[in-house]
């Protein structure tokens, strides 16, 4: 057993459901106890989804524990297939239902016999893999299933498209700025003359997965999800893939370089994007100019800590060090399963490396190093708040504010602008706070409170004050003012708890906002 307060990566089935619900017309069925379907809440709230999340629980209750759930699961599969007519139903167990050791594979095949939809059982071990590993695995499983199905039906078209083309693999729901990243990558590929063949899983259709081999190559922008699929397709169809993360100017240049090499090899003629990269770097992106400007000069040697998933933490570390002259005193990731790759990436661009999924270890590290800014997940933002250190959020896990409505890619050339803003704002905010502290805060504070003071003519009893202290800070002032207003009006001089409650019940105060 492990004493845990917080976790960076969720349980395996979340990864599976994220992949399944990213595809169009795929339905997830969770074999789970009541209350385990909060994935739907996350998707509906964080992504502000307009559509019902295509995930239904097949509830495991006492009855199921004693009698087994064969009938129930099969019935739920058949019913869902009839109601929503999905192309594919993905059946997934949760931690608990894994332990029941029921023949879910058997239920899936019985379910598929009774329905028009394809049915797949997600292949995962809850006690060995986390959300990200499971997502990677499930994506590969779905792709493999449809490639093999097409092969069996002699329906697999492997002729390449006339124009150079690529698949983008690994962008999916609840991913950190994934929608924006995909849009930015599509734009850049268009400018490079590369057509986008398929984007999977986000917005993709499983019936079109058999068209994946028509692309000339694959692009896997994120380290966490998509590599298994890319390497499967490489083995099957000798499709090359680009696994460099196109984040930051240097990262972008390397990514475009990889693409040009692949195209050169496949077209058997020299493809060179050097001019494009040069123009984008110097004039379209503002990041190169930003690093030269005197603003960024002030960042030189400033100390920062980076923590996040492998992709984002590694890329941001490199950007801070190589492109902005910031000293990264520690860089780390919670992707323990990918520790070697991560160490290799950040070697030489940071002083220390930390690999952990325990947020208290990360907190202790930050407290010890006292950086000027942190770049991390929502957890690091809260650690920073406690320690008074500003934090820019660069990686999942994230809150709703990290699903912005505006265009905010982290990848591509627009991504470099966004990252520059984020870094600069984090450091200047810290500087502003520091200056305020030196000058003793805002000088208007006293004047403002005096003009709002309304304690004329009545006083608070001890119990009244105590009750007032129980009211959450952000409304306390309002409650105090309203109560005093009420007391004055009623000619009450001593404000007791009773008077407070009476004030709340009185009609004419708040009214309808």
């Amino acid at each position, binding site marked *: *057993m*492990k*004493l*845990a*307060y*917080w*976790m960076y990566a*969720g*349980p395996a*089935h*979340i990864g599976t459901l994220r992949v399944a619900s990213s595809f169009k017309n795929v339905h997830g069925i969770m074999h789970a*106890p*009541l*209350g*385990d*379907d*909060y994935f*739907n*809440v*996350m998707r*509906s709230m964080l992504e*502000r*989804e*307009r*559509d*019902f*999340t295509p995930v*239904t629980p*097949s*509830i*495991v*209750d006492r009855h199921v*524990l004693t009698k087994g759930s064969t009938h129930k699961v099969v019935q*739920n599969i058949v019913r869902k297939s009839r*109601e929503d007519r999905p192309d594919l139903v993905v059946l997934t167990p949760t*931690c*608990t239902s894994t*332990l*029941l050791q029921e023949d879910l594979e058997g239920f899936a095949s019985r379910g598929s016999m009774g329905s028009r939809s394809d049915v797949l059982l997600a292949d995962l071990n*809850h*006690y*060995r893999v*986390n959300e990200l590993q499971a997502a990677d695995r499930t994506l590969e499983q779905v792709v493999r299933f449809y490639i093999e199905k097409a092969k069996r039906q002699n329906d697999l078209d492997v002729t390449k498209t006339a124009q150079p083309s690529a698949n983008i693999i690994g962008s999916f729901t609840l991913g950190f700025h994934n929608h924006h990243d995909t849009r930015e990558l599509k734009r850049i590929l268009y400018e490079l003359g590369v057509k986008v063949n398929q984007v999977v899983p986000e917005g993709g259709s499983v019936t079109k997965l058999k068209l994946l081999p028509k692309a000339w190559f694959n692009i896997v922008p994120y380290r966490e999800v998509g590599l298994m699929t890319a390497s499967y397709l490489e083995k099957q169809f000798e499709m090359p893939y680009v696994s460099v993360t196109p984040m930051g100017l240097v990262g972008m240049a390397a990514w475009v370089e990889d693409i040009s090499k692949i195209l050169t090899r496949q077209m058997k003629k020299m493809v060179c994007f050097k001019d494009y990269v040069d123009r984008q770097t110097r004039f379209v992106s503002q990041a190169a100019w930003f690093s030269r400007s005197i603003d960024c000069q002030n960042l030189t040697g400033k100390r920062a800590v980076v923590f996040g998933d492998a992709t984002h933490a590694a890329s941001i570390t490199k950007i801070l060090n190589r492109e902005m002259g910031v000293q990264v005193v520690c860089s780390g990731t919670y992707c323990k399963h990918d520790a070697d790759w991560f160490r290799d990436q950040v070697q030489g661009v940071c002083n220390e490396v930390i690999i952990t999924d325990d947020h208290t270890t990360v907190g202790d590290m930050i407290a010890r190093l006292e950086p000027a800014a942190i770049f991390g997940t929502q957890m690091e933002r*809260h650690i920073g708040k406690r320690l008074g250190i500003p934090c820019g959020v660069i990686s999942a896990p994230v*809150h709703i504010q990290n699903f912005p409505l505006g265009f905010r890619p982290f990848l591509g050339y627009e991504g470099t602008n966004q990252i520059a803003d984020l870094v600069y704002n984090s450091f200047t905010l810290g500087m502003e706070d520091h200056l305020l502290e030196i000058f003793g805060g805002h000088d208007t504070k006293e004047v403002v409170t005096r003009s709002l003071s309304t304690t004329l003519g009545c006083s608070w009893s001890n*119990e009244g004050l105590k*009750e007032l202290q*129980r*009211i959450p800070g952000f409304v306390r002032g309002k409650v105090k003012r309203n109560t005093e207003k009420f007391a004055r009006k009623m000619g009450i001089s001593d404000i*007791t*708890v*009773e008077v407070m*409650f009476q004030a*709340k*019940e*009185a*009609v004419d105060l708040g*009214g*309808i*906002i």
Partner: protein
Amino acid sequence: MSTLFPETLIFECETGNYHTFCPISCVAWLYQKVEDSFFLVIGTKTCGYFLQNALGVMIFAEPRYAMAELEEVDVAAKLESYDELKRLCFQIKQDRNPTVIVWIGTCTTEVIQTDLEGIAPTLESEIGIPIVVARANGLDYAFTQGEDTVLAAIAHRYQPSYSQKLNKIETSSAFLNSDDSLLKLNYIRQKTLAKNTIGESQPGTFKFLTKLKQLSQTLFLKITSSFSEQDRLPQKQKEKQKDHQLVLFGSVPNTVSTQLTMELQKQGINVTGWLPSPRYADLPFLGKEVHVCAINPFLSRTATTLLRRQKCSLITAPFPIGPDGTRGWIEKICSVLNLLPHGLEKREADIWKSLEDYLQLVRGKSVFFMGDNLLEICLARFLIRCGMIVYEIGIPYIDKKFQAPELALLEKACQQMNVLFPRLVERPDNYYQVQRIRELQPDLAITGMAHANPLEARGVSTKWSVEFTFAQIHGFTNARDILELVTRPLRRNKALDRLGWTQLVKTNGDI
């Protein structure tokens, strides 16, 4: 008339494929309520991920709860649960030093059959901290029923011998420092006085303690009842208040418990304690002579435990939600304690009058409860009295005996307002419910967050049901807060309606 209005309520039951929170979510509000507790949820990553996502930022304020995360070696029974739990509980004792540790059993401990109830007593004596075991799992319960299992577990393990410990703790300096209520301060102040009065009557025993409390409470009442002239009680009732002991059960913020306590004091009723109390060490005395009454509709197991194990006498009443419910609740308590309620009618009428601005917004509007927190029946009853039409009350579970007075009040409300009885659907099926919402097009759907945004996108106004669990909704004082919640989508949409963008999905308006 009789054909239009069925004589009784009709109960239906569906498939149980519905969305609700896992009952372990109760740790979120219980750890805040019971200030000296520590909640240990023994489960898997799934449980932990739910808690950290459902409870949002609360997680960052050094919570007094944690996961004992089961790893592969634990579920494969390769490690002894006893040793593992001992290690973690010692760590908790060292870091936080709580007065009680509550173990929350989950689906996983059920499935692998960890004998938490068996382990707890041994470990408890080894560690020196009481351990309460509550099985708040998704196999058996929904959302707020989690609180029910915890309170039932506390009520179950409560033993008279415990009172001696209690006495010790109460008189310790820790107690002196606690600033929880006037009542306790008075109690301390009066302790010397009381000792003289009671004389030799067995100090250290429970009787002594109860008498002390009564004495200090009489004093407390004297102070508080002198708030205003009209609240002066008839002399007869004042004398009666010594005769009864009343313990209320259900967890509400301290402000609300103060409000309800004062409301009963106006009737000459002393509340001798609350389950849970803000500190575990201050649990009220329970026993044959104690009356107990619930303030929430999901507390049926706790009620049963208090009745059967502690031999308390249970007052089943409507729940103090909305002015009608609050009045019904007080009246029932009064009638059991042989007191004549006074001033209630006017109090209720005044509150209704003060709600008029909100009532104008809701009158004639229709509501659909998808059901997830068991508050549905009393909320529906209140909204019907507000002039709304309730199409369906979805609810995870109905204890018809425990909820009988509430169901009767619901029937009465329907008859009084001349509206049809709503459909009561236990263990609903969310998919079918969405079909019914499409047909009925209610003005408001009260639903979980999984469905709220998709319904809004299809032009159905929604209110997120979980807010009713966390908002202050009890008593006369907070009736306004319920309507504030209910009318929020109506007011928001009124503000946006003239823009004409109600359907925001790319279909023909199909749900």
